[in-house]
């Protein structure tokens, strides 16, 4: 109990005599209103007669003449002893800055935590995208890449053709740590407008079984194989089209000299029905050429015809299960 008695705040009772009551001369402050810290803001507003809450941007009412004493008094004494300002008469010399037309510009703090340049939202349609600078630049990049790739020729519109629509797809490309990298726009053809036999034929493309991937991985572990991963950028755009496909000019990039022309596609686009197969065919043709060159080079070093087929088979085991990802497994030991 002694412990409890000793820290009893006797000293807190001392300032009671100094409490700001109706005798203003007991302090050194000018004879204006003195506010104890625990006076509520509502009591302040009653004395100042100014609309301080909510603060409007023009009128900044700071009470320059209200002197706030530091926290010397105990909070327990105030509510019971006196509400110090409630009975005060309104002093006529009470002024605010607003009455003297003194306005300070309200400083708005920008407390948003993201990076300084705002990332614009993904546009819902290409018309909105053309108004946004970032998206428009992304669209221009994509358009230029397609033109460089000689994806289409502009031709006069043929009579009675099947012309497919083109669509713009927008997305934010992100880095591996899911932070923003850049804006990405992709022009795709609307494959649902295509008709079998008119502008698309075979669409089948082989897909690998997951078990085959795991098999290759375990064989590569058991034999001295090196595994490498290759990546083909925009792989579908490399596929050559055998069919005649017409597409409207992309929105926002209509040729000003030939606005009525249509695009005759030379290379495949994302979204076409035969895009998968076109890419696969291109890739296989490339591989066969490559393998035949290698076989021609290394044939003198191989003894029998049986062994000669080995590298071919190993190079043929290209797994192309997704257009974006390719894995090439080559067994170096067979080439020695």
């Amino acid at each position, binding site marked *: 109990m002694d412990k409890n008695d000793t820290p009893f705040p006797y000293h807190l009772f001392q300032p009671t005599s100094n409490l700001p009551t109706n005798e203003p001369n007991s302090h050194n402050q000018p004879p204006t209103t003195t506010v104890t810290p625990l006076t509520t803001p509502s009591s302040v507003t009653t004395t100042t007669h100014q609309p301080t809450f909510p603060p409007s941007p023009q009128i900044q009412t700071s009470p320059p003449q209200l002197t706030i004493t530091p926290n010397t008094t105990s909070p327990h004494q105030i509510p019971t002893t006196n509400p110090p300002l409630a009975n005060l008469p309104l002093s006529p010399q009470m002024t605010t800055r607003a009455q003297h037309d003194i306005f300070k510009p309200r400083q708005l703090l920008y407390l948003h935590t993201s990076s300084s340049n705002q990332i614009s939202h993904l546009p819902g349609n290409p018309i909105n995208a053309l108004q946004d600078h970032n998206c428009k630049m992304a669209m221009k990049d994509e358009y230029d890449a397609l033109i460089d790739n000689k994806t289409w020729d502009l031709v006069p519109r043929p009579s009675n053709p099947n012309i497919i629509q083109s669509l713009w797809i927008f997305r934010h490309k992100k880095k591996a740590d899911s932070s923003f990298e850049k804006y990405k726009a992709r022009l795709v053809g609307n494959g649902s407008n295509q008709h079998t036999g008119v502008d698309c034929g075979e669409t089948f493309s082989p897909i690998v079984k997951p078990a085959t991937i795991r*098999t290759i991985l*375990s064989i590569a*572990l058991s034999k001295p194989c*090196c595994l490498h991963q290759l990546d083909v*950028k925009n792989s579908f755009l490399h596929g050559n089209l055998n069919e005649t496909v017409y597409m409207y000019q992309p929105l926002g990039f209509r040729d000003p000299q030939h606005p009525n022309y249509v695009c005759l596609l030379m290379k495949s686009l994302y979204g076409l029905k035969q895009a998968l197969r076109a890419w696969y065919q291109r890739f296989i043709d490339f591989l066969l050429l490559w393998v035949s060159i290698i076989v021609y080079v290394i044939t003198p070093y191989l003894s029998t015809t049986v062994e000669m087929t080995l590298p071919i088979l190993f190079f043929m085991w290209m797994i192309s299960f997704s257009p974006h990802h390719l894995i090439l497994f080559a067994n170096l030991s067979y080439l020695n």
Partner: protein
Amino acid sequence: MKDLGPLSYFLGISVTRHTCGMFISQHKYVEEIVERDVMSSCKPVSTPVDTKAKLNGTSNNPYNDPYEYRSLVGALQYLTFTRPDISYFVQQVCLFMHDPKTQHMNALKRIIRCIKGTSTHGLHLSPSTIDKLTTYTDADWGGCPDTRMSTSGFCVYLGDNLFSWSAKQQSSLSRSSAEAEYRGVANVVSESCWFQNLLLELHCPATKASLVYCDNVSSTYLSFNLIQHQCTKHIEMDIHFVREKVACGQVRVLHVPSRYQIANIFTKGLPLQLFDDFRDSLNIRQSPVSTTGVY
């Protein structure tokens, strides 16, 4: 074409080489699934399903968002690429894609809770001999409460590495457990035949006969007993298919006690201890990197 260096990450699957083999896992994909779901703050559980009766479709509480259900089930199906231990449970929730009920969604949520707790698990591959195929097959007879179809599951090892598995409802009704098991044997024999052809094309053929482990004695006998029995004449095709392979020495069907039947994990919900044992047998382990500091 760009060379990205040694194989490290493809199709959402990360590949890590370490001293004793290779580790493939989809932990990033798991995190995406758990985040996408409304239950990102759920508590993990240790097993994906409890051991009670299987799901049925006779409830009257349709789930209000079938689209979400299907989307999640599809995501989990892709997750079975490196997680064979959940393939049975995913198969169970797949059965009700056409008409999901609230209880099915609850089962799905439980799977998600389980994979949240084991997100760092993945398939472990190690260098081993690649001349021998070992397969395990199991079936639960009449397991589906609605149709009484049997579910059969198998897993195939090349050397020590698991590379193929399946948990699937059989397409026809079986009148006896031996029949259901025998269908499972026929399925796994056809899988191993395909795989032997694949190995032949890759110029590393399997030189030894593939072993089929089955925990049903009758099925074991049926595979090499050449007498046509009265009770098996309706599964004649399966009978003769397996017998032919056994006769030419490609396949041997052997018996294994249920306690060591790894394929149990593809046909039923198991108690925790057994589930952990079998999962370990399937080479589903924690990432070797994450366990480095444990010792």
